[in-house]
C-alpha cells in the first residue's frame, strides 16, 4: 500500500505545483511548465510501478491461509472433542442400561481410540456382579460394542 500512497502524493503534489505555476506565468512559460509537470508525473508512475514486488502480497496471502487452516483445525478439534465426549458417555449409558436389565448397578467408562476418537477400544466397569452376570455382559459388550473380553476391566466395588 505504501507505494500507492507515495505515488498518489507525488502525482497530486506535482500537479498542484505545476498547475499553480502555469496559471501564474505567461502562455509560453505555462506550456513548458505543463510539459515538465507531465514528465514528472510519468516518471513518478513508472518508478512506482517498477518498485512493486508481487512477493509482498503473496506473502500476506500465505499468512492468511495458514491462519485460516489453524482456525479451521481448531473448529474440527472442538467438534471432535465434543463428539468423543458424547460417544463415550452414550456408550457408557448404553452399557449401564444393559446391565440394569440383568439386575446390576454398574458404572461404565468407555475409552475411545486416539486415532479416530470415535471407535471404542476399552471399558472400565465398576460395581457388584456374579460370575454368570459378568459373563453375559462381557459377551454383550463384545458383540454389540466391539470391545473384546481382554480389553474390559472389571473393578469389584461394594
Amino acid at each position, binding site marked *: 500500500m505504501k507505494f*500507492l500512497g507515495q505515488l498518489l502524493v507525488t502525482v497530486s503534489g506535482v500537479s498542484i505545483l505545476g498547475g499553480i505555476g502555469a*496559471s501564474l506565468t505567461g502562455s509560453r512559460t505555462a506550456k513548458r511548465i505543463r510539459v515538465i509537470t507531465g514528465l514528472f508525473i510519468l516518471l513518478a508512475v513508472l518508478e512506482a510501478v517498477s518498485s512493486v514486488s508481487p512477493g509482498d502480497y503473496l506473502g500476506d496471502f500465505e499468512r492468511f491461509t495458514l491462519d485460516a487452516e489453524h482456525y479451521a483445525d481448531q*473448529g474440527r478439534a472442538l*467438534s471432535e472433542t465434543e463428539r468423543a465426549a458424547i460417544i463415550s458417555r452414550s456408550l457408557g449409558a448404553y452399557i449401564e442400561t444393559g446391565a440394569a436389565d440383568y439386575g446390576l448397578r454398574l458404572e461404565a467408562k468407555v475409552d475411545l481410540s486416539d486415532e479416530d476418537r470415535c471407535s471404542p477400544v476399552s471399558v472400565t466397569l465398576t460395581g457388584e456382579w456374579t460370575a454368570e452376570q459378568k459373563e453375559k455382559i462381557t459377551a454383550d459388550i463384545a458383540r*454389540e460394542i466391539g470391545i473384546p473380553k481382554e480389553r474390559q476391566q472389571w473393578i469389584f466395588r461394594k
Partner: protein
Amino acid sequence: MKKSIWLFLIFIFLVIPASALEAPVPPGEAAAIAPPPTLSFGQGLQKMLRAIIPTMRPDVAEAIGVCTVIFASAVLVSLVGGDVQRLSDASALCGIGCISTAFLSSAHSLILLGASTARELQEYGKLLLPVMTTALAATGHMTTSAALYAATAMFNTAIGGFLISTMIPMLYFYLAVCVSAALTGEKILKAVKKEFKAFLTWSIKTVLTVFTAYLGITGVVSGTTDAAALKATKTAISAFVPVVGGVLSDASESVLVSATLIKNSVGIYGIYAILAIFLKPFFRICLHYLLLRICAAVCAMFTSEAIGELVEDFSSVLAILLGLTGALCIILFISCVCFLRGSGL
C-alpha cells in the same frame, strides 16, 4: 422410556460447546446499540435505528450550517460579480476561499470519522472472523471455512490498510487539487482531479467484484470438497457395528446441531455488531453528502461554473469516503452471510 433417556442425554450434551465460542463485543457505543441475536433482522435494524436517529440532531444542524454558508457565499459571488470582469474574478476567488473554509472544517472531522470507523470495522473483523471460522469448521465445512477466512481477512486488511494509510492522506490532497483547480482554472489540475476520482471509483468496484467472484468460486470448489468429506464420514460410520454406528451417528448429529446453533448465533450477532459500528458514521457522512449534493444542484443554477464544480467536488469527496467505508462493511457483511450459509456466494 429408553428413548427419552437418550434424548435427555443428547440435549445435556448440546449445552456443552455453547460456552466455547462467543461473538466478540463491538467497541465503544456500538456495544450498547447492537441488539441481541434473538431478534429478527427487521426488529434488530429497527432497534438500532431507534437508538441512532435521535442522536443525529447536532449533525443535521452542522450539515445545514455548512450548506447555508456555501449557499450564501455562492449567492454573494453572483450578486457582487456582475459584468465587470476584474470584480467578478476577485469575488469568485473570495467565494471559493469562503466555501473551502466552510467545507474543510467539517470535512476534516468527517474524514477522521470515516478513518476511525474503518479502523473499528477492521479490528472487529479480526476478532469476529476467527470465531466464525472455528464455528463453521465445527459444522464440518473445513475447506469452506478456511477459504472464506483467507479471502475475507485478506480483503479486510487490504481495504482497511488502503483506506487508513493511503486514502485518508489522499483525500486531503484531492481536496487541495479541487480547490487549486477552482482557483486557477488550470486544465492539468482538472484532469488530475478527474483521473483521481475515476481511479478511486474503479478501485472500489474492482475490489468488490474480485471479492465476490472469489467467494463465488470458493462456494463451488470448497462446497464440493466438504460434501465429499461428509460422504466419506457417513460411509465410515456405516462400517461400524450397529450400536456404535448409531451412537456415533447421533453424536455427530447433536454436535452438528449445536455447532450450527452457535455459528448462527455468532453470525447474527456479528452482523448486528458490524451494522452498529457502521450505521451511525454512515448516516452522518450520508447526511452531509446528501445536503451538499442538493446545495451543489441549487448553486449550479445561478453561480459561476467554478464554484458549482467545487461544491460538486466536495460532495464527491464524501461519496468516496462513503464508498470506501461502505466497501469494508459490505465485505464483512457478505462474509458473515457466507459463514452463516456455510458456503461461498
